[in-house]
């Protein structure tokens, strides 16, 4: 028989020790001197741990059109400042159109536009018309910024929930993956994450005629907005308001938001505190409009429109409604965390209740134990001593998978457990190939030791070919798979690689060790 090199024994022992050490953190907390690379247990996927899994899509086009709409204001002010009169000033998603009234002011207008809008390409198709198109790289930058900012805002909101180790990461260009392990209330999480929390303060147009406006003639510079759904005389009803279009203050000027009790109705409310800039604006606003109403608009709905009784210098406001304590708490969270720069939409959800996760773990562990017990018994009966050797390798293999998954920081999912189960069935394949080949060599009349050599040598290329093809399938799966499927691909790949080592090298080592001191062997227990 070929001699089994000493370094291979060393390799097997090293791998065994590292596997044992790497697998330990999954069973108990390792002592403090334990090498840090081997101290992390395997991460359980959300489908096993339970929790919320959301994929959000950020409406980045809205972020762009929002920004363009803001630039329209800049354009209006800049043109007014230079006393350039225009007959049209409009915007769509990513462009603005300006039509200048007097031919003599066209040159001046061009200069003003060029000075103010270097992020746009300015064209002049007809003498008095300017079209400003947002540069693609600026649009791209705005979109990226919107997603990054949305991540920041969402992180702040989720952190306020006080859950442990949420994951909030960018996926692709405009999607955000949110995972909150151990959190069950999917409705609350979605509400908390999905609300834009756009807060605006606008003045009520006290001089305008609301009825006329409702029938179609809205005064210039005004806008109609509605209050929340109410039931009046058994009918659903929303109070309309005629407001000045201009936003006096917004959520950006809030420094803090806290739950409070509204003293008049003894109800839960949220008290806002403005930052310095906001407080100054609020001070000026209230001083100039005593006796008028100002509307607090939350996410496009008029929350309330109190009358300004006197100048308010302190810089705080209150949002009321029939809030439950939890609603008030969550509203305070999202106002404090800031508004989302663009609307987000849940495009995928996979949330798992804690009991299902535990059931999945139990059932998965059961299948692994029973499945491998069956294989161990079968191999023992079918190949006797050699079967037992293969069984040792199989246990080693499972240990190695556990350790490898822990060390590389892989996540174990339910399909991942299925991958391990499948690997157990396929791991013995290499041994079956070798043992069948040894049997053949024996029946050709070779001596037992020569038959072992022949069996291993001839089966090797087959084993490599067969495993590489499965590995190809696993790698493709990893590239294209999402979430749980990826977990399956990982354990399958790890399992295949581990099984090639244990089924070939480890069994060979054991057999070599057992036969080392003997010159002649009459019969193999195979």
């Amino acid at each position, binding site marked *: 028989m070929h001699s089994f090199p000493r370094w291979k024994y060393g390799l097997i022992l090293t791998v065994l020790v590292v596997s044992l050490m790497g697998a330990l953190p999954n069973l108990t907390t390792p002592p403090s001197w334990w090498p840090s690379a081997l101290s992390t247990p395997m991460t359980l996927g959300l489908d096993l741990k339970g929790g919320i899994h959301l994929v959000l899509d950020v409406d980045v086009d809205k972020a762009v059109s929002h920004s363009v709409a803001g630039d329209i204001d800049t354009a209006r002010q800049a043109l007014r400042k230079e006393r350039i009169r225009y007959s049209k000033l409009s915007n769509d998603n990513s462009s603005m159109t300006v039509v200048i009234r007097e031919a003599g002011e066209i040159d001046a207008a061009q200069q003003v536009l060029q000075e103010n809008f270097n992020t746009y390409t300015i064209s002049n198709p007809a003498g008095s018309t300017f079209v400003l198109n947002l540069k693609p790289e600026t649009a791209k930058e705005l979109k990226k910024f919107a997603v990054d900012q949305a991540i920041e805002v969402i992180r702040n909101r989720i952190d306020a929930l006080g859950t442990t180790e949420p994951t909030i990461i960018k996926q692709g260009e405009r999607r955000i993956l949110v995972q909150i392990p151990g959190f069950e209330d999917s409705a609350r999480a979605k509400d908390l994450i999905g609300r834009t929390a756009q807060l605006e303060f606008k003045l009520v147009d006290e001089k305008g005629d609301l009825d006329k406006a409702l029938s179609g003639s809205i005064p210039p510079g005004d806008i109609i907005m509605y209050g929340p759904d109410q039931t009046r005389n058994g009918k659903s009803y929303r109070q309309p308001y005629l407001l000045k279009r201009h936003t006096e203050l917004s959520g950006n000027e809030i420094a803090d938001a806290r739950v409070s009790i509204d003293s008049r109705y003894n109800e839960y409310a949220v008290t806002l505190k403005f930052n310095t800039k906001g407080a100054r604006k609020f001070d000026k606003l209230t001083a100039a409009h005593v006796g008028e109403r100002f509307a607090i608009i939350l996410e496009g709905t008029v929350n309330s429109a109190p009358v300004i009784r006197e100048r308010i210098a302190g810089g705080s406001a209150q949002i009321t409604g029939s809030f439950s304590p939890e609603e008030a708490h969550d509203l305070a969270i999202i106002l404090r965390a800031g508004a989302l720069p663009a609307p987000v939409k849940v495009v995928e959800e996979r949330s798992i209740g804690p009991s299902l996760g535990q059931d999945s773990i139990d059932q998965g562990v059961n299948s692994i134990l029973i499945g491998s017990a069956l294989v161990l018994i079968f191999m023992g009966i079918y190949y006797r001593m050699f079967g037992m050797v293969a069984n040792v390798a199989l246990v080693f293999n499972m240990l190695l998978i556990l350790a490898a998954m822990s060390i590389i920081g892989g996540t174990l999912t339910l399909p991942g457990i299925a991958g391990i189960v*499948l690997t157990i069935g396929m791991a013995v394949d290499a041994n079956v190939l070798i043992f069948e080949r040894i*049997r053949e060599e024996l029946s050709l009349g070779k001596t037992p030791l020569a038959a072992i050599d022949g069996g291993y040598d001839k089966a090797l290329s087959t084993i490599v070919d067969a495993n590489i093809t*499965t590995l190809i*399938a696993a790698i493709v799966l990893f590239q294209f798979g999402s979430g749980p499927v990826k977990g399956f691909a990982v354990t399958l790949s790890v399992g295949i690689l581990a099984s090639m080592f244990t089924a070939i090298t480890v069994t060979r080592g054991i057999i070599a060790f057992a036969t080392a001191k003997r010159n002649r062997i009459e019969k193999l227990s195979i």
Partner: protein
Amino acid sequence: MQLIRSDINVDFIGKRKFALIISGIMLLVSLGALATKGLNFGIDFTGGTLVEVKFEKAPAITDVRSAISPKGYGNAVIQEFGAPEEILIRVQNKEAENSSVISTAILDGLAEKFGADAIEMRRVEFVGPQVGEELTRAGIMAVLIAMLAILIYVTFRFEFRFALGADAALLHDITIVLGLFALTGKEFSLPVIAALLTVIGYSLNDTIVVFDRIRENFAANRKRKNPLDENLVVNDSINQTLSRTLMTSVTTLLVVLALFLLGGEVIHDFAFALIAGIFVGTYSSIYVASPVMLALAGRFKGNEDEIKEMEARP
């Protein structure tokens, strides 16, 4: 112990016409089922909402329906899931609706009727229409790319006609497993795609083992003074590897059966696909891959040197 005697000699290749008929029937039935019944695509591909709820005591399906009807989901698909206490509710996406709130509405409806403490959320899945399309595309791409990559690898390691034989067996297996899903109406979900790719890997594994032996025997055969007929050599090769083919199928089947019976409802269809795949995969590595390879004999023979060089590879 030995299940297969070492001197076994079954005339597999001689019966290939018979096998062709069996495969033909299986393929026709599968394609027929796929064309008429179609696959029961899960929400991973169609988009939609799925809510799994565990009740304290088994509810009547009609009560569950009447609980969610006021919320506008009276036409939902409601079924038992594994146990009578566990109910699965499925709703299609509607146009222009913020669909992620469907699950909330359903759970609210159930809590109002049965009491919040009597029900427990087990699982909520929601896949938006766009994501569904993406997952479908990714799934199809994954299967195609896996097959292409394998074709390249097998061509590199063997001859081109071997690769075609292997891919014919793969197509055969996938079609039949898909046909079984169409026939039984089992849900076709993302994990089933993973199972399909595993079946591809497994079926190929079997085929490669047989091909390896054929390659070895072809090389030995060429050295003889009177080379035997290719059909005979192939048949011998299949017989020599038969014991291993069956052994591995048995061990794999043992663990997958454990998964099927004990792994829980979520993994059930996944395990079903694997079991079906192991059966057809074992069959096809004997009756499809080699006969196709033989039928293509002479069509892709490059020059003799190339074949010799191929056979010299380890």
